């Protein structure tokens, strides 16, 4: 038994085989086991519910579509995350093409009522927007590290870079978040 999700356990090898055989119950198990983590990763990367929902759906559809190509060289979860990160990147491209926005820009509400929120909620809201505004690779690395506490080697396998590059991008991402937070605090006095 290797993975827990929504309170149930499954054997990864067995589930993969069942998925390859097109067993519907296996697909449902997979979706329900991973839907929360994929949705929250997508939400962090996209910055809004609608896009996160779209990325989540596309991720699972692609998992089903491509399961025949999964050879078990990585963990199933790593593979699913990699699909999710690529789907988020594709979604950004689509949006930037239709809206004429730079690809790395995450449209976020420019003036949420931060001052009316509790301090902690305000910080989370600010951080949420700040993460969504990071360049794509930094955003993916930071989200996978702070949300899922994945090892840098696993993150590297998901985003398709070296472990060293994952660490560097994490450093740059956190540094950028810190700068954004400090700038915000200075503005707020």
């Amino acid at each position: 038994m290797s993975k827990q999700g929504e309170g149930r356990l499954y054997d990864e090898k067995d589930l993969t085989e069942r998925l390859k055989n097109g067993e519907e119950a296996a697909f449902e198990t997979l979706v329900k086991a991973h839907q929360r983590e994929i949705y929250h990763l997508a939400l962090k990367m996209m910055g809004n519910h609608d896009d996160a929902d779209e990325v989540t759906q596309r991720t699972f559809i692609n998992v089903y579509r491509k399961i025949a190509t999964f050879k078990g060289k990585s963990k199933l979860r790593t593979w699913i995350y990699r699909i999710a990160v690529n789907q988020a990147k594709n979604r950004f491209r689509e949006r930037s093409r239709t809206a004429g926005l730079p690809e790395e820009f995450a449209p976020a509400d420019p003036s949420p009522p931060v001052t009316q929120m509790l301090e902690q909620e305000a910080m989370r809201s600010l951080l949420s927007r700040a993460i969504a505004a990071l360049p794509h690779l930094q955003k993916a690395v930071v989200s996978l590290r702070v949300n899922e506490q994945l090892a840098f080697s696993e993150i590297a396998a998901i985003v398709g870079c070296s472990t060293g590059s994952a660490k560097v991008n994490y450093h740059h991402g956190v540094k950028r978040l810190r700068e954004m937070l400090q700038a915000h605090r200075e503005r707020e006095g």
Partner: protein
Amino acid sequence: MNKSMQCKEVSDLLLDYIEGESTPELSERIRAHLKACERCRREEAEMRDLISEAGRASDAEPSPGYFEYLYPRIKARMQEEGLPVGSPAIPSTAQRLRDVLGGWHLAYALASFLIVAAAVVLTIRIVDTGPGPGGAGEVELAATTSADPWHDAADIVEDLESEELTQVAALLSDEVYKTAGSLLEQEEEDGLLSLSTQETLAGLETWQIEQLAEELELDYKASS
């Protein structure tokens, strides 16, 4: 070796320390500095707080029932898209090719496929841009278009065995495709034609595009 550290040095290494990525010796030195320096302790606390809060940011649950109905929604969408859940998984394109080809034949087939895919995207891009003020020399081979060939190619490459990937990379490693070829070799291990490789393919020099266009007999001139 046990020289005391400066605040700037600690600040630069703090994130590695917090993430448990420092060597034991370095961690010990950082710890010693933190013990004596209130400013750096404050910075450490802020950093830990930032990481912790960043982990909770966007953790807000979607509307009630969202996760309960996500699977039925995905299932219905797949039905609409002609991919009903419950049907046996479709063998990958690479597997189907492997069944009828194999070895170098598969590599040749895929290399040809990638070249044709590049040509299709190139054609689309040229049609999209037309002769602009910058002249056709500004035209780039754009993998970011919605051209399906890239996705098809990525699907195939994803399922190749290492040896097959090497063969494809070798075939692609001629003058025009040397960049893509080397990247394909790098990606041999995880067998994924990543977006970065697609972007590299997209980043071919104008003269390479011209050469490719000439080889494929496309009606394209870089300078008009």
